[in-house]
């Protein structure tokens, strides 16, 4: 592509040649902010991968205590998973209404995102409390330590997400759909969906494999 052609479609920056590899000078904030946030999510995924590796190597270190098939209940986990997936879907709806700058519906969808996330968290906490009650707390064995840490770390992320959703609702309400606030909403939805991806891995590796007959 010659320089003039490239200029015609806006690919050059003040006459410098362009090979399509991002040489047009600094990118705008609408690119940079989500990009940086993606990288952060990536680092979070690495953190979870360390926890997954730990769980995988300690899952049989039960020290004579309960094993996976005695503790997990597929039905409860299915409901829990459903709550989180629905939450993610509603988060998508919130993003669509935010793009259309519909204040009321954005707030409603965000509230529902948070509520379904909260239901997920409640089910998780009930499961935790139930396990601790029957003497299968994290101090019982290395397997249970790694289980509570892996699943609990995801739960802690969901809790942080709920606080973030609350903050974003307040910000939208107070400041409207400013450009920076829309960027933050985008990051929030990336975060929320990433938690889903991690949950799918937890669902498979911890619960499905753990309840195989």
């Amino acid at each position, binding site marked *: 592509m010659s320089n003039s052609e490239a200029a015609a479609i806006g690919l050059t920056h003040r006459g410098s040649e362009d090979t399509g590899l991002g040489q047009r000078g600094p990118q705008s904030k609408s690119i940079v902010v989500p990009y940086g946030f993606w990288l952060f999510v990536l680092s979070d995924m*690495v953190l979870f991968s360390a926890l997954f590796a730990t769980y995988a190597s300690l899952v049989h270190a039960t*020290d004579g205590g309960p094993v996976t098939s005695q503790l997990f209940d597929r039905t409860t986990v299915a409901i829990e998973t459903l709550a989180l997936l629905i939450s993610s879907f509603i988060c998508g709806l919130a993003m669509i209404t935010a793009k259309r700058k519909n204040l009321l519906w954005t707030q409603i969808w965000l509230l529902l995102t948070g509520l379904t996330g909260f239901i997920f968290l409640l089910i998780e906490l009930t499961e935790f409390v139930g396990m601790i009650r029957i003497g299968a707390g994290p101090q019982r064995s290395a397997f249970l330590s790694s289980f509570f840490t892996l699943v609990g770390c995801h739960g802690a992320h969901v809790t942080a997400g709920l606080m973030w959703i609350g903050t974003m609702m307040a910000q939208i309400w107070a400041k409207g759909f400013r450009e920076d606030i829309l960027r933050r909403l985008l990051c929030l939805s990336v975060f929320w969906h990433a938690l889903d991806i991690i949950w799918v891995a937890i669902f498979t590796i911890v619960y499905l494999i753990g309840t195989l007959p």
Partner: protein
Amino acid sequence: MSPILGKLTWSAIPFEEPIPLITSIVVIVALAAVAIWITKIKAWPYLWHEYITSTDHKRIGIMYIVLGLAMLVRGFADAIMMRAHQFLAIGPHQGYLNPEHYDQIFSAHGTIMIFFVAMPLVIGFMNFVVPLQLGVRDVAFPTMNNVSFWLSASGALLVNLSLFLGEFARTGWLAFPPLSEKAFSPGVGVDYYLVALQISGVGTVLTGVNFVTTILKIRAPGMSYLRMPVFCWTALASNLLIIAAFPVLTATLAMLMLDRYLGFHFFTNDGGGNSMLYMNLIWVWGHPEVYILVLPAFGIYSEVVSTFSGKPLFGYRSMVFATLAICILSFTVWLHHFFTMGAGADVNAFFGIASMLIGIPTGVKIYNWLFTMYGGRVRFNVPMYYTIGFMLTFVLGGLTGVLLAIPPVDFIVHNSLFLVAHFHNVIIPGVVFAIMAGYTYWFPKAFGFTLDERLGKAVFWCWFIGFNLAFMPSYLLGFWGGTRRMQHISDPSWRPWLGIELVGAFVIGFGVVLMVVQLVYSIRTRDQRRDLTGDPWDGRTLEWLTLSPPPHYNFAVLPDVHGEEAYWHRKQEAIERDALIAEPDYQPIEMPLNTPVGVICAFFASICGFAVIWYIWWLAIVGLIGAFAVFVWYAWRDEHEHIIPVEEVIANARERRRVRMENLHQLSQST
């Protein structure tokens, strides 16, 4: 345990131990004196506005480097104490440090030198240099950059607090379990270690995110990937490694904290815990960490060797590929840190071979530097001294590394002084010499005047000779069966060698003192050593295009890049035509506002960390709530940027053009 003060009592202050007590008092008095002096010359507002709350990458870089150099003195003091004790504690003599204290010193030495000396210095250089070399005005997230720095500073504060309140870990710099578990280390030492590293680790991950985004998304027009200076490439590789490795450290230390605080069983002897899991996890972070430090150091050498040889870097592309090859290979070698675990011959063979493979791209780099010098008109300035000194000694360290990568050899010299000699032999020439080279090389860019050459060379010789004296005998001692971390030495025939090592440590110490002298002398004679052109070394990369020190916004107009060595070509063209490029159309510039959010965040992080170390739970909750409140308050701001008026930009730019024109006439006439 009291609900108000947790484990904290008067006995936390080491009244009966004179060494830490006197050191702490001296440090506190010195800090108070500095604070009073700053108050007296009324510099607090200046420091607050220009440094503490600054979002300027150059200022943040300088703060990182100051932090790193200050901690270098602390870590070095530990080193002198160890060497002196080793020399004294031979045969019937017991030395002056009891085992408890000696163990804390070697743990603190390693922790401080890696986390609070090497990391801040390397990150400091990346901060100062990368945006300038990319021809842009700041990093991608300037405020987050400030937060990162203050979180690192918070971690450094906690580690040093352990000198005065309580104790430090006695577990070595990586706190291996089961020794670091509650059962065997019940005190607060390991907690200081864990909390300090968690806080500074968060800062480091944020730095990684920030710099990868900056290098991939924020570059001057025309600055394609293969036109970036090699230092930017190494910074990219290093920050990719940070993103991929530091979260593992966070997870690992968090698990150890859960073991210690809540009675989990990750790494304990009972309950099914597995301490070898910790070794695997910590070294999955730990080995890439070596390259996080040394890759930017290689970048510094590349810049220096090309500038002072007056030639483009030989094999630029192979340098980039070598960097990325090391970046990837660094994740495939962690097991060589514990061949003796007993993973079996196949596993050990794989990791042994992978470790040796890293020697290949590193060798490529060494040859590239040599060939850059070959046929060049080499100027022997201080940075070049360090580069040559590095190449001579680092090759030796690399070769002993290849020896250690052979599992059967490793079984013999594992955990010996041979190993200690090896890693000091790669880290001191590899990282510390690079830092000294970079410090001399970019100092005029940061402050507008050069450092004294004669004193700089004296400092180099101290480091070079001192290093060789201090560590080469350890290779021999290691072969003779000397294990690392020994508080007492029973074989009196080692005395001469330990004496040589002590002398070496003192020679380095003399170098550190000379460095301070060099700085003071250079500041006093700064008027004779001003860098008026912004290009004191006849540089080739874009940081030398702007003034020294650069304006806040670096470049009045972002430079247009047309090839590798962006500044060099621009300069040659200007010399040929005896004219600068036509004056561009100046625009007002938007720059990020200063913000106290970093320092406030670090304040709450320090409080929260301190509370966790001492089991003061109410205070930990206060710290957390405070940190969250700061985030919300910060997110509520309406102003992000301030505008620098076009008149100011034009005035600065015209002044720069006038200076450059004068310089240009001289250059044109001389060629």
